[in-house]
Each structure stands twice: as C-alpha cells, then as structure tokens.
C-alpha cells in the first residue's frame, strides 16, 4: 500500500493558517504525503494542484466565514475535472447549521474547533474514495 496523498489548502483571503499547518504536520507524522498550498488560493488553483499532484484527499481550512461559497466551489470544480473520487474534507469556524449544506455540495466531513488530529486521521483512513 502506498502512502495516502493529501493536499491541505487555504481557500479565499483568510490568513489564519495555524490549524492548517498543525493538521498538515500531524497527517505527515501519521505517514501521509502532504502538500500545503499556502495562503490565498482560489478554488481553481486548489483544484489544479489537487489534479496535478494526484492526491487522494483535499483538506480545506477556512476561518473567515466564506466557506459556504468556497467549499462548494472547490467540490464542483473537482467533479468537473474528473476528480470526483478525491475525498474532500473541511474545517474551521463553521456553524453547525451550515454543515448539512456543505455535505450535500460534496464535502464529506466538516471538522470544527476541538477536533483532534487523531480523529481526522482515522476519518481519512476510513473514508477514502479510491483504492490505494
């Protein structure tokens, strides 16, 4: 079995990347191959990176409240690019009531503050959409 490949991405203009960096590192320590995009990525840039790097998972982090626009946009573009078999997960300051809509749009899980990196690692391992 090859390592799971993950793209950790910061969509939008939000500059809070403490969470994204901690998670990227925890996934790497768990044996995954992790690419971090850095700040201020458009959905188009994120999807292009995901396709180019052939990742199994895209993790989106946003704390600015723009998730309802940016998360579905990434999911939509992923499908358009024929990468519908990539697991998309998201996290940040996201009100519970927004979660059902985001899941419907193609984000498999939303992790809110207080989630442990272990929970996230387990989720990824148990929910990949591709065989690796």
């Amino acid at each position, binding site marked *: 079995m090859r390592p799971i490949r993950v793209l950790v991405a910061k969509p939008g*203009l939000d500059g809070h990347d403490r969470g994204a960096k*901690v998670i990227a590192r925890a996934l790497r320590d768990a044996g995954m191959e992790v690419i971090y995009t850095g700040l201020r990525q458009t959905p188009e840039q994120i999807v292009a990176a995901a396709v180019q790097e052939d990742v199994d998972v895209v993790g989106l982090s946003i704390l600015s409240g*723009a998730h309802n626009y940016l998360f579905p946009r990434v999911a939509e573009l992923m499908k358009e690019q024929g990468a519908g078999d990539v697991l998309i997960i998201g996290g940040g300051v996201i009100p*519970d009531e927004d979660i059902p809509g985001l899941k419907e749009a193609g984000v498999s899980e939303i992790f809110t503050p207080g989630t442990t990196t272990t929970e996230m690692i387990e989720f990824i391992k148990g929910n990949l959409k591709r065989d690796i």
Partner: protein
Amino acid sequence: MYNEEEFSRLKRSRENWEETVLNKSLNKAPESKTEFKTGSGTTVNRLYTPEDTTDVDYETEIGYPGQYPFTRGYQPTMYRGKTWTMRMYAGFATAEESNERYKYLVSQGSTGLSVAFDLPTQIGYDSDHALAQGEVGKVGVAIDSLKDMEILFDGIPLDKVSTSMTINAPASVLLAMYIAVAEKQGVSADKLRGTIQNDILKEYIARGTYIFPTDPSMRLITNIFEYCSKEVPKWNTISISGYHIREAGSTAAQEVGFTLADGISYVEAAINAGLDVDTFAPRLSFFFNAHNDLLEEVAKYRAARRLWAKIMKNRFKAKNEKSMMLKFHTQTAGSTLTAQQPDNNIIRVAMQALAAVLGGTQSLHTNSRDEALALPTTDSVTIALRTQQILANETGVTNTVDPLAGSYYIEAKTKEIEEKAMEYINKIDELGGAARAIDLGYIQKEISDSAYKYQMEIESKDRIVVGVNKYQVEEEAPKGLLRVDPIVGEMQKKKIEDVKAVRNSEAVKEKLEALRTACKGTENVMPFILSAVKEYATLGEICGVMREVFGEYEQAVLL
C-alpha cells in the same frame, strides 16, 4: 538585594525548611506531577524566594512607574489617574450596520472605537473583485471608497473619540480616508487620536493580509511615520503586534522576542530613511495577547516594557524618555476560546483580561463567548464589555500601581522572559534582522513548532482544556449566532457603481497617475493617496496602482 551574610542565612533557612517541613510532607503525599510548567511550557519551581531575585536590582531593573526602565508601567499613577481604554474590536457587513454597533458600544461605556475591516479591504481589493467573492463583510466591515468611510463614522465626532483601525498593507489609504472624513466634519488632522496597525512584518509571519513585498511595504510605513509626525501628531502610527504571533501558536517569550525584533526593524527603517529617532518613536505602540497563564502573562508585559526601554536607550540612543516607553493594547486570546460549552469562555476572558490589567495595559479588547463559533452577537459583546467594567469598578486591582511587583515569582519570571526574548532578538540579528528571518522562514518555523507541540499536549491530555478534553458534556448546537447576509456583497457592488457614476472620473485618473509617479520615485506617497481618496478613487484602484509599481509579496510556504 542581600549581602553575602544575609544570603547564606537565607540559604540555610531554606535548606532547613526543606529538610524539616517539605520532605516530611512529600513523603506523606507526593505532588501530583513531577514537573510543573507555565502555559508556554517553561519550568515553574515549587516556591520562589528572595534567592530567586537576588540579581534583580530594584532601582535599576524594576524602578518606579513613569520612569526608566518602565517595568512598573509607563505612567506614574497608572489606573489611579485614568483607567485603561475599553476598546472593543468590531465591524461587520456594511458601514451602516457597523456604524450602528459603534454607536451602541459608545452608549454602553466603550471609550474607544476599534474598526475591523473585511478581508478584501485588508488586502486592497474592492468588493466587486473576483477574489472578494464570499468574503465581503464577513470578518469586518467592507470599505471600498471614502463614501463607505463617511457612513462608518456618521454621527461620531472624530475630535472626541480615539479610533483604532486594524489595517496593515493598505494602512496609508484607510488613514487618508479617516483624515478626509474628519475634514468633512470640520475636524483638522492635528486633533485626531487613534492608531493604525500598520505592522506588515507580522502579516508575513502570522496574520496573512500582506500585499506588497518587504521593501516598498517598509517605505510605506516610514512614509506614514514621517507624514504623521508633521500632520497628525497625536496619531499612533503603528501597533507592533505580538497578538497574532501568539495566536499562531508562539510562547510568551517568543511573542515578546519576535514582536520587539519587528519593532527594531521599523526603527531601523525609519532611521535609515533619515528620520530622527525621537521624532517618531514616541508614537510607536504595541499590541499583545492575554493568554491563559495569568502570572506568566503579567510577567510578559513587564518584561516587554523593560526590554524595549533598554533597546531604545542603548541600541538606538533615544534621548526622549517617551521614545523608550512601551505603550500597549491587549486583546484576550481568541485561540483559547472553545466551541464546546461556550459560556465557559466568559470566565477565560475575565482571567485573561485580569492579566492584562495587572500587567498595565493601556487599552483592552475582551473577546466574546461565541467567537469560536461566529462573529459575536450584541449580547455577547455586552458581557465582554461588562467584564472590563467589573474589573475596573469592582475588583480593586486598579487602586495601586503594578500590584504584583516584588512577588518573587513574578520578578523571576519577568527576568526569565526578558532574557529569553533577548536570545530570540540576538538570533534574528545574526540572521540579518526580522525581514530576513521571515524570508528564511525562521520565525514561522519557531511558531509552528510551538503550535504543534501545544496541540499534541492537548491530545495527550498533558494540557487540559475544560470542556474539550476533560469535563465534556453532550451539547446541542448553539442557537442565535450572528450571520452576515450574503446580500452584503451585492450591496457593496451597487455602492461602488453609484460612487463611480457621480465622481469626477478625470480627476480620479489624474490623481491616480500622480500617485503612480510618486510610487516610482522617492517622495512621500501620503499626500498623493490623500488627494486620490478625496476624489473617491476606490481602495482597489489605489492599491491597484501600488501593486503595479511595487509588485506583490510571495509567501514562503513552509511546513
């Protein structure tokens, strides 16, 4: 200070206590942990005694408030003279809605305004820019042109309030808009009081709302220093911020070390631009975090004051004592707030605010209980403001200056943080200064290492967070959170169209071209920005011109 004889007597009495009292107790009931640590992970001894402070000379290291090295505070009477400014950071959606929140806060006893801008504004994009989509009005108010700024401060007399604006890369533009609004109110620039954050280095390090590369950014900052020293003399031209460095995960000593290293870079840049240190240094201000470890935080503020005073006096040869005084704003630590059992956050904020007050802050923002979930509601903001009012009016901690001075623990920790911070500053000097250390990723790496360690401690329960990894309960999803209507984006677009339809577009073009020429040369750009703003050139247009001349910063992506 003790002489040798007294010192050995102290040592003997301590050893005697250890043998006869302590060891007996430990034999019967050991301590709960083998090692005790501060929130930043530094060792805490069981007991602090005069032996721990023998090298802290009262007169030279602690001294008196209002006197070098200002360890005990920058004013001689501190809160006996005037309590701190209760300054609640606020702003969301449109200028109209934010204006309403400001008026409410002032009516409830808030004594200073603090403007939060949305991300497109902070990054110099108008609300109709493609990258602004989904972000307009979300984390602050959307400002596209002078028109929005006029609405934002409508009915608020700018000669009466002091206004802090959390704006960095486009600080020159927002300051120009503020000056222009004041002028329309009949208030001249020399009467304006307030602060712009204007601290680009910590944007590269931790906060992320940079636009231009380092050199033009430093030029803009020194242009502001120079312009304000002549035209807006009561304005604090920068708020050198450790807050976001701490939020990104640093320790207390890193917060002080990295922030003062940034401060050193600004002072050097201004001196290199030909300014005399004593003309601009009195208007420098700082911004620190108030984290959970109450006593460590108090020591941190005291250490920062003392170290900055020494740096200004010894390194930069400042003559004016005002250049050596570290004045600071404090905000409680947003990253410590939990989405679980959010009412517990009220208690956290109260403790953090107490630390800031015991540490001698000049102004304070207290976070609201619901900020791990959304922007705060009016009810939550009111509780946060009341927390400050209770501290000021009921607890009695304001009655005497620097009440924790002389505590063996506080003085020992103050010294320890000062020394550790100085080690970081020395390391950054070796690397070639803060800007270079940022380019190399040194500062970011130090912070993210600390952040990772912190998270792992929570997960292993070496660090307890009430409601998160201990004392959890089943909870229902919180109700009544503040939501920003997505229509705000459309409303702002319409406003831009309206402004563009009625302004003198020839004049706008002319002013923008004049700004372009100024940017390419070496003149101070502030007057050119002010002229463009007055013709209702938009923030995006002005920053667009500067982007074209200056280019954009490329972030070093490191893990």
